[in-house]
C-alpha cells in the first residue's frame, strides 16, 4: 500500500517556517471568531446597571481633564475647534488603538487555559479582541458625533473634510498597529514577562508623543528639535489625520498617510510571524 506524501491533511512537527500561515484554516474557524466577538460584547455588561454607558464615561472625563489642563491651563490652541471636541476626537481614536494593543499583548497568558486544552488557530484570539474593540469604538464614536452636533448648534463652524472617505482605512491602520505591536509583545512575554511591566506605562507615555492632547503643528513650533519624534510616529499621524477628516483642523499629507499605512502593515506582518513562531510551543513555558 503506497501513498503519496502529499495525501496528508496536515503534519504536526517542530519545523518552523518563517511564514506558516494557514489562511484557509482561519477561514474555516470563522464561526468561532464570530462567536468569540459576540461573547465579548454580550458578557461585558452582564450584571452591570449602566451597561454600555460605562464606555461613555471614560472618554468624557478624560476629555474634560485634558481640556482643563492642556487648553485652559497650558493654553494649547486648537484653532476653530472647541477644545473639548478636539480632545474627545483624539481620545476616541487613541482608545481604540490602546485597547487593541493592551488586550492583544496579553493574549497568550490570558487564554493559556483554553489554549492548553484545544487547538484552533491561535490568531483568532487577537483578531477577536480587535474586532470586538470596534464595538466599543463605535459607541465612543457615537458620543463624539453627539457632541459634534451639539457644538454645531452652538454656532461653531464645524465641517468634516473630504478626507472622511479615508475613515475605514484609518480604523484599519489603528487595528493593524494595535494587533502588530500586541502580538509581538504577547509572543515575547510567554517566556520572559519583563515586557508586560513595560506595556502599562509605555502606552500612557506613548499617548503624549502621539499628538493626542495637542495638534501636530504645536510641536514643530515650540520644540522643533523633538518634532521628529512626533512626526515619524505613525500614531501621531493617525490621530492628526483622524481629527483632520472629522474637524478639518491640523495638517495632512499623503506622504505621511502612506508612510503610516506602510508602517502599520509591516508591523502587523512582523507581529503575525512572531506570533506564529511562538504559538506552537508557548504552552510549555507560559
Amino acid at each position: 500500500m503506497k501513498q503519496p506524501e502529499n495525501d496528508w491533511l496536515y503534519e504536526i512537527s517542530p519545523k518552523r517556517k518563517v511564514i506558516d500561515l494557514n489562511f484557509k484554516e482561519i477561514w474555516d474557524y470563522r464561526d468561532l471568531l464570530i462567536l468569540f466577538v459576540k461573547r465579548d460584547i454580550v458578557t461585558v455588561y452582564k450584571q452591570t446597571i449602566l451597561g454600555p454607558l460605562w464606555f461613555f464615561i471614560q472618554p468624557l472625563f478624560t476629555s474634560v481633564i485634558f481640556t482643563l489642563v492642556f487648553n485652559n491651563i497650558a493654553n494649547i490652541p486648537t484653532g476653530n475647534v472647541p477644545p473639548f471636541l478636539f480632545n474627545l476626537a483624539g481620545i476616541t481614536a487613541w482608545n481604540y488603538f490602546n485597547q487593541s494593543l493592551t488586550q492583544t499583548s496579553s493574549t497568550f497568558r490570558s487564554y493559556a487555559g483554553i489554549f492548553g486544552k484545544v487547538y484552533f488557530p491561535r490568531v483568532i484570539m487577537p483578531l477577536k479582541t480587535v474586532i470586538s474593540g470596534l464595538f466599543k469604538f463605535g459607541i465612543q464614536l457615537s458620543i463624539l458625533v453627539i457632541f459634534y452636533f451639539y457644538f454645531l448648534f452652538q454656532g461653531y463652524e464645524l465641517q468634516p473634510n473630504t478626507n472622511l472617505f479615508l475613515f475605514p482605512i484609518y480604523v484599519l491602520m489603528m487595528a493593524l498597529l494595535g494587533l502588530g505591536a500586541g502580538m509581538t509583545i504577547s509572543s515575547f512575554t510567554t517566556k520572559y514577562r519583563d515586557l508586560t511591566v513595560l506595556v502599562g506605562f509605555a502606552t500612557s507615555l506613548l499617548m503624549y508623543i502621539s499628538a493626542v492632547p495637542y495638534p501636530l503643528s504645536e510641536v514643530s513650533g515650540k520644540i522643533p528639535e523633538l518634532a521628529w519624534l512626533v512626526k515619524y510616529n505613525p500614531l501621531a499621524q493617525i490621530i492628526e489625520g483622524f481629527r483632520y477628516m472629522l474637524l478639518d483642523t491640523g495638517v495632512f499629507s499623503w506622504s505621511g498617510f502612506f508612510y503610516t499605512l506602510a508602517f502599520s502593515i509591516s508591523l502587523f506582518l512582523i507581529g503575525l510571524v512572531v506570533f506564529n513562531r511562538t504559538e506552537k510551543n508557548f504552552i510549555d513555558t507560559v
Partner: protein
Amino acid sequence: MSVILKAENISKQYRLGNVGTGTLGDDLKRWWYSIRGKEDPFLKVGGVNDRSAKATEDYIWALRDINFEVKQGEVLGIIGKNGAGKSTLLKLLSRVTSPTTGSIKTKGRIASLLEIGTGFHPELTGRENIFMNGAVLGMTRAEIKAKLDEIIAFSGCEMYIDTPVKRYSSGMTVRLGFAVAAHLEPEILVIDEVLAVGDAEFQKKAIGKMNSLSKGEGRTVLFVSHNMASVKSLCDRGIVLENGLSVYEGGVEKAINFYLSNEKRIIPKDLSTVENRSGTGLAKFKSFEIIHTNGQTIENVLSGDTVIFVFTLDIINPNKNLNVDLGFSIHSPDDELISVLYSSYQNEMMQVEEDGRCIIKCKIADLPYNEGEYIVKGRIECDKVESDWPKVPLGKFNVVKGDFYKTGNLGFNGKSKLLIKGEWDLIN
C-alpha cells in the same frame, strides 16, 4: 484499511524547574548554535522520565522516539501508569503543543476530549455555550445547529438550556460539555478518561455513546485510560508507555497483560525475617505472591479474573506427618476485614511429610473485589495448634475494574468493596 495517522519518532523535551535566568542562558546558547547551523545542543541531554527517581538533569524527555500508526476505523488504546507520557502524547496529537523532534501526519481532523466544557463562559446560557464550545472544538455553526436538539436531549438539561451556565450544578455543566463533545464528528477522536464524570446513569450513557462511536460508526479513536476494563472492551490494539518510551505495541489483550505484569517488577517479600509473629513455628510463611493463570507474578488484578495465591512455607517437621491448615484474610487498606478463608473450611488439609520448603497454591476464580487496594494476611495451624501468625501483612494487591459480570458491563458503583452477581428471573 488505510493508515489515517502516523507518528514518526516523536519526542518531547521539557525543562525542569523554574523558568528564570538559567533558561535565558540556555536560550542564548541554543540561539548561538542555531545561527551557526548546528543542532540544538540540548537535544542531546535529558533524562528518562522516571518520576520516582530524583532528577539529575535540567531537561527531561517526556516522550522519546514514539512510533505508531493508526488505521482507519481502528480504536487504539494508550496505556501506562501516571507519568508515562500519555497526556503529553495527547497534547501533541491535539496540537496543543508541538513535538521537539519527529512528526505526526494525519489524514483527518483530530478532535480531542482532553477536557470537556472548554470555552464555556459562565455568563452565557446553556444554548449559547453549546455553540461556543462546539466552535472551539472545531464545528461550524451549521453543524452545531443541525445537532442542537440532539445535544440538548443528550445532556438532559432541557429545562435550563436558556439559563446562564453559572447557575448550573457542576454535574450539569459536565454533562452539557460531554454532550457537545460526543456529537463532534471528526475523523479521529482522542479521548482521555472523560468517562469518569457524572452520575452512574450518565456514565452509562457516555460509555454507550463511546461504544457506538467506535464500534457502530467506525470512527478512529485514540483512547487513553487507566481503566483496563474499558480499554479492553473498547480497543482493538494497545500501546504501553513507560517512562516516556513505548515498551509494547500489539493486540489489546496482550498489551494489558504486559502492562499489568510490567507495572512493577515484583519481588516477593521475605517473610522469614519477620519477628513479630506468634505460633509454634512448625510451618512458617516464607513468601507470598499472586500469579496470573499464565504463570506471571502480578500485583494488579482485574476484578472477575482468575488468580492464584501462592504461599511458600518453611517446614520443620519432627513427626513426618503434619496437617497444615492454611488460612488467609483479605483486608481493605483501613484494615477492615473483607474475607477469610482457611483450607479447612473446604475440608482441605495439607498433609506435609517432608522437611524443608513447600508451596501451597489457592486458585480463586472470578475475583469478586471492586477496584482498590487490598491487603493479605495469613495464619497457619498445624494439627489445630497455631503454628504461625505473622502480625504484618503477607502482601497486597491492587484490583483494577474488570469484566466481573462477563457481560462487558463494568458496573458503576465504585463504593462497594465486594461484587456479587445473581441469576435473574421474572415471574408473571
